[in-house]
């Protein structure tokens, strides 16, 4: 019996289940495994995309790049041509500054939420991106105009608005852990976990959701829609892990978070890669990263020449339920 709400976890208990903290992630994995010189490959979405194309990894189609204020005409033409598009800062982080336009209403644009957006507001948004408002460190940036991804209906049904995305951590070419992030009413359509989104842990062997976490603790159904979450299968799971491993391979980094989106028609598309993937994936899966990373480190040192299929098979076998 406890009379006071528990404030702190005991460090010994966390260590026992292998939860890693930021210090350990940085000291043991990010700093020694990820050479600084390759950071541009993950920080610049355009570079990520070019590398992906060269390795024939599917990504949302790039319509254009906005480098100057005067490119509004281009946006208009692209919007008329494709119907919908996404404008995002090249170096944005955490989904900031992403503008989804789903069509045109007269001279105005329509945002994903249904709200109309005038020419003037579009111009301001672009100037914010170019001015570096959303980029790391506030440096000058440019904007990408991309195909709008329509999420697979199975996943879209799990989310309260917004598009769910998949995060897979890949270590030295081995998949380590995966989760699906879905938006809630509280997270305002964003799939960002500390803004209230849900993290759904995925069983690597089967692609089934086996655990669900909200900022308050473990859950079994969506807080807004009431949809049951556990046991749902991620579509196209058989291609997700190979794609993630291949994408991680293009970065030159050894400890990478790979973000994918599941397009209704095209299947999994690479969104971006991350050199400092967050730690919430552990909560989403109800499991610590450390035992897996340790096992993979030993495996990789023992069999340094293993092929991608073998690495994936190893992870699925070791970390599946």
């Amino acid at each position, binding site marked *: 019996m406890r009379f006071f709400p528990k404030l702190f976890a005991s460090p010994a208990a*966390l260590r026992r289940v292998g939860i890693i903290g930021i210090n350990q992630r940085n000291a043991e994995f990010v700093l020694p495994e990820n050479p600084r010189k390759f950071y541009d490959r993950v920080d610049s979405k355009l570079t990520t995309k070019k590398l992906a194309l060269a390795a024939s990894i599917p990504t949302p189609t790039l319509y254009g790049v906005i480098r100057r204020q005067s490119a509004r005409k281009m946006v208009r033409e692209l919007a008329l041509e494709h119907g919908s598009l996404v404008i995002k800062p090249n170096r944005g982080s955490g989904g900031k500054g992403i503008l989804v336009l789903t069509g045109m209403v007269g001279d105005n644009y329509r945002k994903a939420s249904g709200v109309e957006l005038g020419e003037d507001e579009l111009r301001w948004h672009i100037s914010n991106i170019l001015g570096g408002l959303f980029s790391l460190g506030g440096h000058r940036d440019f904007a990408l105009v991309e195909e709008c991804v329509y999420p697979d209906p199975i996943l879209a049904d799990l989310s309260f608005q917004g598009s769910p995305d998949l995060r897979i951590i890949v270590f030295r070419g081995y998949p380590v852990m995966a989760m699906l992030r879905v938006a809630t009413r509280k997270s305002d359509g964003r799939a960002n976990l500390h803004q209230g989104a849900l993290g759904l842990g995925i069983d690597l062997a089967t692609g089934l959701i086996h655990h669900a976490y909200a900022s308050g603790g*473990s859950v079994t159904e969506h807080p807004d829609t009431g949809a049951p979450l556990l046991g749902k299968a991620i579509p196209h799971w058989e291609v997700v892990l190979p794609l993630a491993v291949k994408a991680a391979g293009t970065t030159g980094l050894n400890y990478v978070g790979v973000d994918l989106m599941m397009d209704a028609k095209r299947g999994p598309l690479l969104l971006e890669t991350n050199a400092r993937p967050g730690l919430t994936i552990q909560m989403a899966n109800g499991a610590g990263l450390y035992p897996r990373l340790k096992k993979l480190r030993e495996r990789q040192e023992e069999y340094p020449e293993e092929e991608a299929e073998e690495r994936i098979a190893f992870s699925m076998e070791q970390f599946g339920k």
Partner: protein
Amino acid sequence: MKGGRLLFAYVFLLVLAGGGLVAWKVIWLGYPIIPSETRDEWLLEAKVSFQPTGEPITVSLALPKYLEERVLSSEAASVGYGFLREQGEEWRAVWTARERPGTQRLYFRLRVPEKALAVRKFSSRGDKPAVVEPALTGMTAEAAKSLVEHLVAHSADEGSFVRHACALLLREEDRPETGVLRRYYEKRSAELWLEAAVLDLAALNGVSARVAYGLRLEEEPGVQAPVRLIEYRDDSEWVVFDPSMPEEVFPEGVAVWSRGGGSLLVVEGGENSSVTFATTRVQVAADVAALSANHPIFVSLFDSLPLSERSVFRYIVLIPIGVLIVVIFRNFIGIVTLGTFMPVLLALAFLEIPIILALVMFGTMLAVALVFRFMLSRLHLLVVPRVAACVVVVSLLMLVFSAVGHRVGFATSLQITLFPLIILAWTVERMSLLWDEEGAWVAIKQIMGSVVVAWVAFVVMRLNVVQHILTFFPEVLLIVLAVIMLLGRYAGYRLFELMRFRRVEEDLA
């Protein structure tokens, strides 16, 4: 672990070097580790008052040049005046203004160690100044000549001549000539007759003598008129004495203020001018006093610096302590701050400005800047001009703060220098950028974290012991460096992570 042994080797060397230097300084050179002893200092204040006549005003006040090297701090309070310090042969404070209404009061304050005030003799370069014979006539000339003859016969050197002259003039009954001289000089100036007479007698005998001014060192607060003193030229030095007590050793508790023959106060464009003094005794830790400046430069880095650099030095040695605290708070507790260095800068600003005032200023500036930012965001300005506009508003706000502070009377007790203001303004800029980029919650969290860490750093940096040790044992910074390097290897959980992960533990239990 790779690099581990190397790290420990570095840490060992750093601790050995730092600790060794400290031990050497403490054991062999006798540096005090704890600032226990105190030293007396005096706060001397000269107040000039006068009635302006309507013409442009120039006020020139003689200052104690001999204290130049020893002054701990000085300030001139003078609202509405231009101020400059002449630092030539003489040392003078000069105030200027075009036109001022009503009675004017100007202040000059000095803080000096007590020891520095005990100087009575002043070495003099150059030859004795030429003596101008006074133009005396008739009976006065006769009386003066006769008195000088008597004095020469009864004195051994310049000193005894001048002192004896004072004594004779004060005791009129001893010789008839003194009465004649006294009446003559009293007619010229009722107040200054004694000094005028002594200087003339000295001149007749070819002795250089001049008027000097002093003040009594009184612990009780109160206003005093300047003490008139006389200095005469010895073989090699100028010696100051009190003409009202010529036979005595220079009285304790009187300090020389100005000497060198210049007038104490010159006021142009004013009348009824006067100078008064006030003194206060302050006790401080005997940091500097205990040390000899003859040590090699790396031993007493601090002493080798000129006064103006010392306050900068004090801040520089405190910065690493602040950084150490930031490391602890960020990597062990998990508090987020605006950058690594910012909380330290904020803490330095707190050291300069009283902390409550600093927080109020900081809060007000943040609030106004943010309100202004929201107004600007409606105008759809580009990013850089928007930030620049915020900086302009913050600058205006700082102007208002300084002006109000001056009016309310902070100006004398509190000098808000440029440095903390820049830090505050810069923080406001970063904060408003962050507000744009990451949203209100992240910005507030980071600013709160920064203020908390800055406050803790401020509390530690303000500690007398910390300041003392770092000022006199800068090599302690090597140990701080070693500690930070060791902390850099910490790969355990942060306190806030234990909170974040508490549910996981329950889940898995």
